[in-house]
């Protein structure tokens, strides 16, 4: 490997070295504040190193990894999101015993997500996926004294393990049929060989089911509400934004590189699942009084919106716009989800170890914690796709992409789903604005300067993405064309 190869992989190297350093530091001195700060530093450094790595892009490093700007953009995003998570969760995990390893696992999970962003080969896909998932199992169970996180972790372990195994089997079948494991090699081989067509269908079904499970697309969504509910709030935020984003990134890359759009039936099934996810996710979210469960169902709906992109990609003329839309959507969704779960983290830091995630518990938040309530307000409006927020521009992108491909049914499902969605997002806002006389005296949430700065940053980034999206759009165009 040349120096350039190392430069291209710099973010991964920074994360790996950072993880090692963190481990040594924990062995030396147990101090959660220090570990948290160090972890955030490592993650920010990794994010910054993406800029440096971009100078060599695009560069194929070994057959497994491709360091192009698409990968590096998402590496930056994932590292920043993880840094925010690290800072948010400091107070949250500090109330338990031995919270230091939490940050170590967080860095490892982020590394898994970054490998997925780089992956152009089935082997790297599986490596990244497992690194991400295994770290997540532990992260979910981290507050080890309570029953809910344990239940969530076991559920996620069993189901996610099964999904990974299914996908792995699917890839094995694919390998049997094509003899290739690199994404573009698979694409070529699919075009050339005519033997072994019989196993292609089961292979496609298994791979797609495995990945759709990680994205929690209906009907593979059943784990979502329980895991979201049981996992500690900062981990849920990470799971919802980074873990799902990384899987979508690699799914999109697989579809594009292997040109799976030629199998129209497969894409049609994707479209169908998108529609079901949009409608079912939104409808089920209506029934929830628990904000985390509500956000879980809403994330199902959002993955449905995102799947529209795959359908649009079938037409080569609109592919660039669709990919642009997907990237913008993922960026906006990551910022928004982090903000929403960030709020839940910040109001759940009380020493009792109980999470404040019921609608009742945010009642009157506007008058108790204006800044935090504004954070939630902006996040919810962004999820609902109201203008001036990142979510609106993202949805606007999707609508443009879908209109360019004349996908009317998908568009109407999008409109219907968003229409339903307004209700449950607004309900949270309504609870937050209830007057003091309408709710009983509640806990006073702890919020220090760190929480305030983070909230300010998240609010600013969501609004900035919504008001001045021009520069990111230009960048996306530059890297895709």
């Amino acid at each position, binding site marked *: 490997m040349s120096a350039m190869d190392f430069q291209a992989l710099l973010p991964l190297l920074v994360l790996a070295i950072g993880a090692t350093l963190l481990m040594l530091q924990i062995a030396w001195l147990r101090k959660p504040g220090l570990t948290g700060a160090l972890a955030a530093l490592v993650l920010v450094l990794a994010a910054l190193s993406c800029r440096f790595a971009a100078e060599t892009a695009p560069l194929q490093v070994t057959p497994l990894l491709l360091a192009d700007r698409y990968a590096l953009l998402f590496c930056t995003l994932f590292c920043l999101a993880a840094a925010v998570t690290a800072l948010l969760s400091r107070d949250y995990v500090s109330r338990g015993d031995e919270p230091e390893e939490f940050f170590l696992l967080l860095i490892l999970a982020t590394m898994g997500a970054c490998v997925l962003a780089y992956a152009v080969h089935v082997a790297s896909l599986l490596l990244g996926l497992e690194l991400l998932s295994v770290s997540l199992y532990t992260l979910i169970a981290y507050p080890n004294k309570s029953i809910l996180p344990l239940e969530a972790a076991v559920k996620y372990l069993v189901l996610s393990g099964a999904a990974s195994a299914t996908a792995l089997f699917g890839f094995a079948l694919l390998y049997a049929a094509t003899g290739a494991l690199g994404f573009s090699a698979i694409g070529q081989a699919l075009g050339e060989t005519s033997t072994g067509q019989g196993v292609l269908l089961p292979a496609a079904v298994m791979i797609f089911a495995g990945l759709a499970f990680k994205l929690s697309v209906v009907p593979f969504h059943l784990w979502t509400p329980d895991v979201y509910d049981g996992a500690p709030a900062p981990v849920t935020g990470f799971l919802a934004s980074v873990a799902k984003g990384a899987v979508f990134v690699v799914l999109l890359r697989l579809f594009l590189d292997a040109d799976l759009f030629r199998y129209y039936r497969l894409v049609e099934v994707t479209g169908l699942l998108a529609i079901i996810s949009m409608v079912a996710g939104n409808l089920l979210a209506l029934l929830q009084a628990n904000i985390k469960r509500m956000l879980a169902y809403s994330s199902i709906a959002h993955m449905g919106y995102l799947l529209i992109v795959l359908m649009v990609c079938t037409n080569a003329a609109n592919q660039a716009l669709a990919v642009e839309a997907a990237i913008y959507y993922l960026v906006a969704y990551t910022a928004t989800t982090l903000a929403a779960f960030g709020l839940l983290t910040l109001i759940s830091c009380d020493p009792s170890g109980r999470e404040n995630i019921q609608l009742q518990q945010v009642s009157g938040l506007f008058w108790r914690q204006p800044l935090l309530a504004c954070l939630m307000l902006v996040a919810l409006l962004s999820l*609902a796709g*109201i*203008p001036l927020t990142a979510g609106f521009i993202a949805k*606007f992108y999707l609508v443009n992409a879908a209109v*360019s491909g004349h996908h009317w049914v998908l568009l109407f499902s999008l*409109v219907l789903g968003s229409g339903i969605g307004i209700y449950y997002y607004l309900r949270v806002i309504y609870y937050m604005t209830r007057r003091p006389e309408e709710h009983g005296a509640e806990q006073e949430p702890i919020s220090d300067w760190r929480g305030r700065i983070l909230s300010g940053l998240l609010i600013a980034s969501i609004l900035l993405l919504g008001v001045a999206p021009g520069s990111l759009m230009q960048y996306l*165009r530059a890297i895709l064309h």
Partner: protein
Amino acid sequence: MSMLVLILILLAGGLVAWQAERLHPDLPRWAALGVVVIALLFLLYSLPAAPVSLAADPLAGHWLLHLKLAWIPRFGIALELAMDGLSLVLVVLTLLLGLVAIASSWSEIDFKPGLFQANLLWTLAGVCGVFLALDLFLFFLFWEVMLIPMYLLIAIWGHENKSYAAMKFFIFTQASGLLMLLAIVVLAWQGLAADGRLSFSYFDLLGLELDPRLAWWTMLGFFLAFAVKLPAFPFHTWLPDAHTQAPTAGSVLLAGILLKTGAYGLLRFCIPLFPEASMQFAPVAMGLGVAGVIYGAVLAFAQSDFKRLVAYSSVSHMGFVLLGLYAWNQLALQGAVMQMVAHGVSTAALFMLAGALQHRLHTRDMGRMGGLWHQAPRMGACAMFFAVASLGLPGLGNFVAEFLVLLGLFAVQPWLAAVAALGLVTAAIYSLWMLQQAFQGAPDEWREMADFDAREMLAMAVMMVALLWLGLYPQPVLDLAQPVIESLQGLAPGANTVLALATDAAGSRS
């Protein structure tokens, strides 16, 4: 630039009013008052003497101000604001009713007055943006953004059933708005197919050659959004709840100006962008208009809640606007514009009255009022004035408006005009009924009730003068609107021929 500054004044003023609360609880309302006065003076100051001409644009209307700044080049979206006579009239109405709204909330709000005034000002900013935006994306942005402060006004400071009302208001407008967004994007992509570049500018999208079927569906997307806001007959159900539950200032803004954004959207966007489809659709729209006129009036008569009655009367009066717009001839359009202004003023006054009554009596139930004239003669006189204004007494603005609409409508759809005229009769019934119930008769219980004070009388007097002026000398408003109406009619020519077809079709059906 001055239009952008106007909106920024209101937005920044909201922040000032919000923070002013920290210094003194009375300060926000003074700050809000100051901000709106400054905005109004700034607007009058920045008006040019002569219309600017948009040389590049063949469809140029008579624009007083025009501003275009690049914003999101990826989609050809610009920060494009423009003002012609119609926008000017509506923006002035918005700011004036903003003053009325602040006056009506002067002593009513004791919970977080700063945030209240801030939301009020932000609503005004959003509405001004709607009246000024000529980029469809920007228009949609203002269209949606103005909902949020309005939602908060209802949800935080509303009455007993506020959560339901606020939610219904938001969902109705937002869901229909999404359809409009869809229609906007489809239209823009048609523009891309036609001239090879994506643009959301009004001027670029006017006069596109559209496939009739596509035009029909796209037009429906726009129409639905505007019809919900207007509100037209089957989409009006959010209105009585929202108006009744909103705080007084919220009702004033809702009835006075938010409803007008729907009418404005139809006039500025829906019909000129899709002339053929709109003219095909005109009979249906006019049918909905007539249905709204009659249905609103009948339901208004059935109400015992003062605010609900006024709310249903709004449905009835806005039906006239819909009729005037889709009759699409000069007289009817002038009538529709007049109705937008006159109804804005008269309904705002009635809601202010209703709010004042509720503040004093803690009820809106007219069954528990009666004989109030003895206790509060000034209030009674004001109620009398605005009730007869609302029923269309000659000499006041509403009469001019409804008369013009009926006159214009008679030329195209005489039978519909005849039925719509019934609305005038029913208006007399429910207005006088309201007056009788609340103010006349013997006082059934003795209560201590303060009459209007100087501040309230001042607000009322301003609105009375406005209505008298509109009724006795409507020419200035008509002169401002006339060139706009002419150029809009120029954009959708062939209206009369299509209308003739529509009449024929209606004739042959009967």
